[in-house]
């Protein structure tokens, strides 16, 4: 790989390691310093590799430079350090200038950082922002793009989140074994949101979106590789993301437009990811935990079977039945009703759909339009018109217009 491509790639994978290790070493109080050192390291790499060529062990080179920069920082701030040193000395390791960039310490630091960033003290939105910045090495502009907002907003949001973590004196450490289950919850939520940000984002940047999904899967894999956090729900989440990601290339066409499930070319589905999803789904089936991720992975599994079968829709319906008992959401309620129509027929589904009363939601009318299509085209059109009026994006209005045209044409 040429250094021009290699550096952005390394930034994605190594930035978080450097920040995590340094931050764990210096404490959250110095998060900005560690971010500066890490960014500075990459700047040095750009300058030096451009002239001298890429070193044989690029990651090792980065660690060495980061280490030196960190030591210089410690040295430069010796006087300042002396004033606050007595306070933090006890927490420091034997050799205060030693920066440990061993694989073990890198992996430990990243995991601990994940739990610190996803601390309940920080708002969910900020957790994702921080995770993107610190754990995924995303630029402020990329984060702004992913959130469809501007750099200023993101900068402010990140600043506030860091202040909060400092003020609350959040330690960079793994939670105690007894707390792991509870603390995992927001970590998994952040990872899943990160994934969804990539999967469903309205951002036009396809590569960025894919990168978000892959980062989420990488973070989840780190939790699985660490025994205390290798819990059934973590495996279920990874399984779920694998199943979804398997369709990544099929659900976008050349013009970056969304291709609906029914029209996807299954040849573009990634079979490796599907079987990986199956593997982690199996691994998630230990113990008594039945999390939302188990159920969503179950649904996602059935969607990897393109052919319609009674078994498929019964399976999907059962999973939605249980999912709604754990966690209600309008989307799940609507999807369940669609599955219900596949199992019990449209009449039954219409009866249940009309009780949902999600009259602010254009997907509600889309569903009714779909259910009425065969039975009562006039009703179908009326519902689709309502959906059209409520639709929020250009892609959605286009899709609805197409449906309306098809039905009007047929009748």
């Amino acid at each position, binding site marked *: 790989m040429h250094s021009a491509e290699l550096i952005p790639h390394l930034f994605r994978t190594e930035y978080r390691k450097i920040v995590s290790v340094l931050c764990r070493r210096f404490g959250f109080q110095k998060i900005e310093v560690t971010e500066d050192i890490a960014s500075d390291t990459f700047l040095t790499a750009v300058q030096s590799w451009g002239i001298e060529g890429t070193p044989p062990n690029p990651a090792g080179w980065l660690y060495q430079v980061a280490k030196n920069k960190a030591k210089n920082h410690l040295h430069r701030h010796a006087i300042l350090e002396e004033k606050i040193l007595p306070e933090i000395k006890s927490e420091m390791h034997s050799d205060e200038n030693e920066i440990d960039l061993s694989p073990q310490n890198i992996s430990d630091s990243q995991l601990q950082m994940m739990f610190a960033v996803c601390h309940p003290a920080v708002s969910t939105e900020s957790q994702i922002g921080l995770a993107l910045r610190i754990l995924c090495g995303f630029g402020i502009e990329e984060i702004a793009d992913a959130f469809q907002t501007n750099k200023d907003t993101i900068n402010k949001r990140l600043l506030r989140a860091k202040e909060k973590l400092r003020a609350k004196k959040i330690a960079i450490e793994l939670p105690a074994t007894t707390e792991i289950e509870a603390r995992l919850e927001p970590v998994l939520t952040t990872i899943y949101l990160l994934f969804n940000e990539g999967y469903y984002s309205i951002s036009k940047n396809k590569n960025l979106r894919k990168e978000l999904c892959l980062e989420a899967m990488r973070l989840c894999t780190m939790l699985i590789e660490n025994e205390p956090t290798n819990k059934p729900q973590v495996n279920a989440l990874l399984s779920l993301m694998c199943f979804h990601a398997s369709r990544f290339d099929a659900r976008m066409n050349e013009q970056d437009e969304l291709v609906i499930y029914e029209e996807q070319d299954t040849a573009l589905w990634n079979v490796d990811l599907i079987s990986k999803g199956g593997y982690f789904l199996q691994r998630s089936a230990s113990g008594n935990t039945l999390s939302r991720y188990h159920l969503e992975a179950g649904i996602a599994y059935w969607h990897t079977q393109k052919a319609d079968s009674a078994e498929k829709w*019964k399976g999907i*319906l*059962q999973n*939605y*039945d*249980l999912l*709604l*008992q754990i966690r*209600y959401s309008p989307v*799940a*309620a609507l999807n*369940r*009703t669609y599955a*219900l129509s596949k*199992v*019990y027929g449209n009449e039954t589904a219409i009866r*249940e759909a009309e*009780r*949902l009363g999600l009259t602010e939601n254009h997907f509600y009318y889309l569903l009714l339009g779909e259910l009425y299509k065969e039975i009562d085209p006039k009703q179908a059109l009326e519902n689709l018109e309502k959906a059209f009026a409520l639709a929020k994006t250009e892609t959605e209005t286009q899709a609805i217009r197409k449906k309306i045209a098809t039905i009007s044409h047929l009748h």
Partner: protein
Amino acid sequence: MEEYIVFMRLDLITKDAQPSPEQMQVYMKQYQDWVGGIAALNKFAGGKGLSTEGKVVTYGDVVTDGPFVELKESIAGFIIIKAESLEEATELASACPILKGPGNSVEVRKISQVHPN
């Protein structure tokens, strides 16, 4: 929105009335589809199925096996639902699939708060 408890009563003692494992699977699916429908309305607040194992303690410290010594209608489980009125709760409960079996019943009761949360 108030909470209502729905007790499901079935015959758990008559041997012939007991479903085969295959039937049981079908019943469980129907049951989950019913509860799923209530949950889809965001009106499900919890529930438990009950094992057939149990004891009954009556006046005079008499302990007998089984919660259903002389009753053909034992409580098989319960769910708690949210509803605007007893009428609405009853309507939701009346779709319970156990009511397809003769002799079975559901009992809908409004929950009143007597214990601290």
